Structure formats: C-alpha cells, structure tokens
C-alpha cells in the first residue's frame, strides 16, 4: 500500500490523479462528517437528509393516490387519510422543496462557483444543518404521537382548538426550527456572494445560479422570520389563549392567514428561484451557447423576489377580505408573471440555433419548460378573481401548484443533481437509463396531474378522503400516473446507486461548462482551490476544448486542475 502510494508520487500518471486526496478521503469516521465544517460535506449530509424526506413525502403521496383509487376510499380510514395528506404537504414543503436545491446543491456548489474555499460562515452552515435535522425529527415524532390533520397550512381556529392534540404543537415547533435553518442558510449565502467574490468577478460576471441563490436569500431572510413569529404566536395562542388568532378569545383567524401567506407565497419563490438558476446553467452548457439576456435573467430573479412579497392576498380571495384588497392583489399577481416570462423567453432564445446536447440534465430541463409552462399558465386562472372564486379549494389548485412546485422544482432539482453528480461523487452515471428514468418521471407527472385540472374544473374539492363516483376515471388515471412517476424515481435512484458502485471515473469537466466549480478536480479537493483560477466568464465557452468523452473538457489557457 505504502509502496504503491510512493510509486504514484514519483510517477504521476492518470491513476495517480484519479486517486487524488479529495474532500471525501480527506478525513475518516462518522465524527469527521457530523462535525465537518466543509461546505461540501455539509451539502452531502443535507442531500441525504433531503432525499430521505423526499422518499417519506413520496410514500405519503402514494398512500394518498392508492386510497383514492375507489370513491369510498381504498386503503385507510378517513382520519388517517387526513393525516397522510397533511404530512405529505408538510414534509414535502418544509423538508424537501424549500431546502432542497439551496441547502443541498447550493451548499456544495456556491463557494466553488465563487472560486472560494468555503462559505463565509462554516459554523453557521453546520448549525443550520443541525436545526434542519431537529425539525425533521420533530415532524417524524408528529407521526408517532397521533399525527396532524389540519392541512399543512395549519389554519386556525381548527388547528388551535384545545382538542387538537400534541401533533399541532410539535408541528409548530418543527416549522419554527426548520424556518430558522432556512434563514441561516439564506443569510450565509447572501453574505458569501456579497463579500467573497474573487477579484475579476463583478456582480454581472457571476453564474446565474448565484444570482438565483442570492435572490432566494433575500426571501429567506426577509419572509421566513414572519413565519417564525406566526407559528410562535400560534403556539402561545394554543398554550395561553392570547386572543390574537382564536375568535373564542377575540382573535382574528384571517390575520393568521395574512401572516402565513406573507411567508408562504414568497416561499414558492424560495422553491422556484434556485430551480430557475439551475435551468439557466444547464440550458446554456448543453446548448453550447452563452446564455441569452444575462442581465435580464439576473434582474428578473431580484424582481421576482421583490414583487413576490406583494401578492400574498391571492390565497385569500374567499376569506372575506375586502373587494378592493382582492382586486389589488389580483393585479399584482399578474404583474409577477412578467419576470418569470422574461426568463422563459431568454432560455428559449439561448437554445435557438444552439448545438443542443440531450444529456440527462438537459432532458430534465426540457421537461421543466413544459411543466413550468402548464403550471404558469394555469396560474392565470387562479390569479383572476372571477375564476378563482369558482376554482378555489378544488383539484384545479392542487394540479396547478404541483405543476409549479413539484413538476418544475423537482425536475430542476433532478437536472441539477445529474448535472453536478460527477463533480460531487467523481462518478459518471449511465446516460441511457438516466434518460429513460427522466422520461418516465415526466410522463408519470403529466398522467398524474393533468386529470386533476379536469376533475377540479368539474368541482372535485381538494383534501377529501372520499368522492362522488363521477370522478372515478380521472382519479384512477391520476393514481396510475403516480405509480409511473414513482417507478421513474426508483429507476433513477437505482441508476445513481449503480454509478456510485461501478460508475466510470468522472473527468474534472465532463460537460464543458465554464463556471469555476468545474475548474476543480472531480471530486474536489478539501479546500477546492489552492488559488482562485483566472476568471474567464461563466458562459464563455471559447476557452474550452473537448479532449474526449472520458477526459472531458480542458481550458485552453493552460489552467487546469
């Protein structure tokens, strides 16, 4: 062993470089992980926790869909069903989609895209992971103590009644703690982008993923504390009868809705903005073309983050708020569609006359365009007052937000995961099977959620454990779709698992991307860079040349890891 290492040192060869000291081999033992301050290791821990949450939320979803196979319910009792749809929502939103892209992928990639050695506050980063884990465990304890049947929105008066049980108090606590973790992540990212850009990288020389994470940070730092104080007040209301939210004591439950949506509407941009960031990276790299309209995409992220704060009332058109409030919120909701459309047109313009390569990440991104298109356009029906009053609380809403939050964010997350997988693990996966999995996921998604627009239009209310027989065909179609979607996900999990065991060694830059995370070896060394590489621009492909499929791309300015 020792002799072999010596030989490798004396005769640097391909084997020697592939077995370089990297962040995975740098230290050993479980303590080197859970006390690690390395953003890459924290990112990996987040990734594992987030994928487990996705699995848990996905199992809940399958229970829901299988139960709805029959009008009278096919699997569980009605109260149990209520627990499942509530926890499906809570786990997917708070434990998977919100932290998914920023905390797992962002954590790994952000410092490297800056050419930096770590985030500005590594300890805070670890703390934020601990808080996330504590919150996740609390959500699992909720299951053990009899569950939660309020819907993820936790609306009072129902949720704060004295008879509700321990589940609500635990869920409020868990939300508070997970929220804190989200604030700390956003703060850390913003401070890092703000103060650790290398010389030669101005604001407009950053990869668009960083703009997206920065804009996400704004929302996390500004909106999440409001959720924190809301759930804290809910907790105190339940314990001490404050009379802030409970009508029994003179409180105002609609005030809770205002507070809740002041956070939870911007929260959908915490989910979608990083997803859009990934799309901007992937679409440019796999079209072999500099991103079209860089400044517009960057600024539209900020615009979404800002305007997103002014539209929360569109969740409350039927709550009894005044007519004028409704009209203003409806108008502003249309307004927020503008920056999203700007992005989509810029992505399409990037692809125009590009040299498009249909690798797995790009397949997911093409799916993203379709899903985000459907999700965005059906949002218009819900933003318009007249149609929303009819569609409110139907399956139309369920289908719409699944298209945006799951369809778009999940596909972008998977695009990002496959895009950075070689960097994170140092292994290539099987392109063919990964692409088949991607297509299964997206086809399954369409079969699951397109029928729900129809049943919603026909008046199928959301959250019901049973339904009228007339909706049966659409519900069954939905369930079949869910099974296809799940099989796609499991196939993809298998593909990634196999790549870990038997995957080919990944080159430093397999896709020919120009941002700095590809200027490190795969997997990266402990400190990412000995010194910051020369900045050539995140979408400048002129400096790259393809050597071969196995050796990937190299920079022609002579700077290579």
């Amino acid at each position, binding site marked *: 062993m020792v002799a072999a290492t010596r030989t490798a040192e004396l005769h640097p060869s391909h084997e020697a470089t592939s077995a370089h000291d990297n962040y995975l081999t740098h230290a050993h033992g479980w303590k080197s992980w859970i006390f690690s301050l390395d953003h890459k290791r924290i990112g990996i821990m987040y990734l594992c926790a987030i994928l487990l949450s996705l699995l848990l939320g996905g199992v809940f979803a399958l229970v829901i869909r299988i139960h709805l196979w029959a009008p009278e319910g096919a699997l569980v009792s009605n109260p149990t069903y209520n627990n499942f749809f509530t926890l499906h929502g809570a786990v997917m939103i708070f434990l998977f989609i919100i932290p998914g892209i920023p905390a797992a992928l962002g954590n790994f990639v952000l*410092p490297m895209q800056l050419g*930096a*050695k*770590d*985030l*500005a*506050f*590594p300890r*805070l980063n670890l703390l934020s992971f601990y808080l996330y884990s504590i919150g996740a465990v609390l959500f699992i304890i909720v299951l053990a103590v009899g569950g939660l049947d309020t819907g993820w929105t936790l609306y009072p008066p129902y949720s704060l009644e004295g008879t509700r049980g321990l589940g609500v108090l635990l869920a409020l606590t868990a939300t508070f703690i997970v929220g804190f973790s989200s*604030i700390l992540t*956003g*703060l*850390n990212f*913003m*401070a*890092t982008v*703000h*103060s*650790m850009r290398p010389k030669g990288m101005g604001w407009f020389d950053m990869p668009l993923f960083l703009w997206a994470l920065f804009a996400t*940070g704004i929302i996390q*730092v*500004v*909106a*999440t*504390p*409001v959720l*924190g*104080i*809301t759930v804290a*007040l809910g907790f*105190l*209301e339940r314990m*001490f*009868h*404050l*009379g*802030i939210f409970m009508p*029994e*004591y*003179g*409180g*105002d439950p609609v*005030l809770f809705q205002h*507070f809740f949506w002041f956070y939870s509407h911007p929260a959908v941009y915490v989910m979608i903005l990083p997803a859009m960031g990934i799309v901007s990276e992937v679409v440019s790299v796999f079209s072999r073309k500099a991103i079209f309209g860089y400044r517009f995409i960057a600024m539209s992220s900020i615009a979404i983050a800002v305007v997103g704060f002014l539209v929360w009332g569109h969740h409350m058109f039927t709550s009894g708020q005044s007519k004028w409030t409704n009209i203003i919120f409806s108008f502003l909701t249309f307004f927020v569609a503008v920056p999203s459309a700007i992005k989509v047109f810029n992505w399409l313009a990037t692809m125009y006359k590009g040299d498009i390569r249909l690798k797995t990440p790009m397949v997911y991104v093409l799916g993203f365009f379709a899903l985000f298109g459907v999700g965005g356009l059906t949002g218009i029906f819900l933003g318009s007052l007249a149609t929303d009053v009819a569609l409110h609380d139907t399956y139309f809403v369920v289908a719409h937000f699944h298209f945006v939050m799951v369809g778009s964010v999940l596909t972008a997350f998977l695009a990002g995961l496959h895009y950075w997988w070689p960097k994170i693990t140092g292994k290539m996966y099987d392109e063919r099977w990964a692409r088949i999995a991607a297509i299964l996921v997206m086809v399954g998604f369409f079969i699951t959620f397109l029928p729900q627009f129809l049943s919603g239009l026909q008046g199928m209310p959301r959250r019901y454990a049973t339904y009228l027989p007339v909706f049966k065909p659409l519900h069954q179609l939905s369930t079949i779709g869910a099974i296809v979607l799940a099989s796609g996900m499991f196939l993809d999990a298998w593909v990634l698992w196999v790549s870990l065991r038997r995957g080919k060694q990944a080159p430093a830059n397999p896709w020919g991307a120009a941002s700095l995370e590809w200027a490190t070896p795969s997997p990266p060394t402990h*400190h990412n860079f000995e010194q910051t590489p020369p900045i050539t621009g995140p979408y400048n492909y002129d400096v790259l040349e393809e050597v071969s499929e196995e050796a990937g791309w190299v920079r022609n300015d002579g700077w290579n890891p």
Partner: protein
Amino acid sequence: MSSHAKPSGERRFLQVHFETMGAQLAASKSGMWLFLASELLFFGGLFTAYAVYRANHPDMYHYGQYFLDWRMGAINTAVLISSSLSAAWSVRAAQLGDTKTLKATLWLTLLLAGAFLVVKYFEYAHKIEAGYIWGGEHCVDNLKVAGKLTEHQIEHCLSALPPEVAHLPIPEHMGRFFSIYFVMTGLHGLHVLIGMALYVWLLRRAGRGDFGPKYFGPVDMVALYWHIVDMIWIFLFPLLYLIG
C-alpha cells in the same frame, strides 16, 4: 488542515477561507446586518399585530395603557440608551487596543442590561400578581364570568385598578392588549437576556486579551446586535406606554 505553523498575534483568528482580516470582518458585517434585517421582520409580525388590533379596537388600547407605568418605561429607556453608548464605546476601545476601557465598558453594558431586566421584573410581577395577564386569562375580562375568579382574586383585581379607568367602560376582550404587551416585551426581554450572555462571552475573551486593532469583530457584531435590541425598545416604549 494545512501544515503551516500557527500564525501568531491577532492573525491566529483568521479563518482559512479568508485571505485577509479585512475580508473576514467585511463578511461578518454583511452577515450581521442580514441577521438584524431578519430580526426586524421577526418583530415586524408583532408590530403588525399591534397595528391591526389598534386600528380595530382603539378603546382597548386607550383602556390598557393606564395599566402600564410610564415612569418605569422611561427609566428603562434611559438605561438602554446608556447601555448602547457604552456598547459603542467598547467597540472603539477594542479598535484602539485599550483593554482596560474595553473591559470597563463591557461590564457597564452588562450591568445596564441587567438593570433593565430588574425593572422589567418588577413591572411583570406587579401585573401578574394583580391578575392583569394575557388574553382570556386577564382578570378584568373575567370579572363578570360567573365562577371563573375567586372572591379574593376579584378583590385583588379591583383594588389594583388604575384610578383613570374607573369611569371607563371595560372594552371587550381587554386581555388582548396584555397579550400584545407581554409577547412584545417578553420577546424583547429574551433578546436582552441573549445580549447579556454575549457580553459575558466577550468579557471572557477580553480577559484573555483576544481583541486588538486588527481583531475586534466580535465586539463590533455584538454591539450591532445590542443597538437593534435598544432600537426595538425605543419603538415599544411609546407604542405601549405613551400613546393611548
């Protein structure tokens, strides 16, 4: 970790991912300001609740205000403003490397913070003893609810009533004013307590001689935090004690 010899002097506090002490300080500063922004939004929810209830139930605030002693509030305002001065002074002392003044001002800030909480304690104790507590539990709200209060509690509640409210009609769900009062001042008090813990930590580090002209970030950051705690009180005092 690198195999270089440990740097001496204040550079021993330079983390590996920063190139200079200045870069490290700039990052801490931007992080701290963002944290303070999120703190403002955290309290912002409470200020909004205050405003909503004030707009909808002005009579409740008019009535409730007489229960708060503005003199106590004024003393505490003076105490906190002085503590902010000494906090700012401690930053200057650290920058100048004047350890003696640094320790003295850190101690002064800590003591003033403690004094604030002592005054707060007396205010709370008085109210809780008389039964002037939060929401549905407030004794004035329950005066007419049969069987809710004992004879003794009713007597207690009435005898401590401020003279100004004797002729006023009792507003409905009066206890909500006290819910808002207790949650806002309670959360603020919690922040004061956290600030005190931070000053104890700073004192220990100052005792070890950690701070000097090149490394004073922690003193600076804690002072920033302390100023925001002070500033929130500057809003709480008039909103709760002065404008009925």
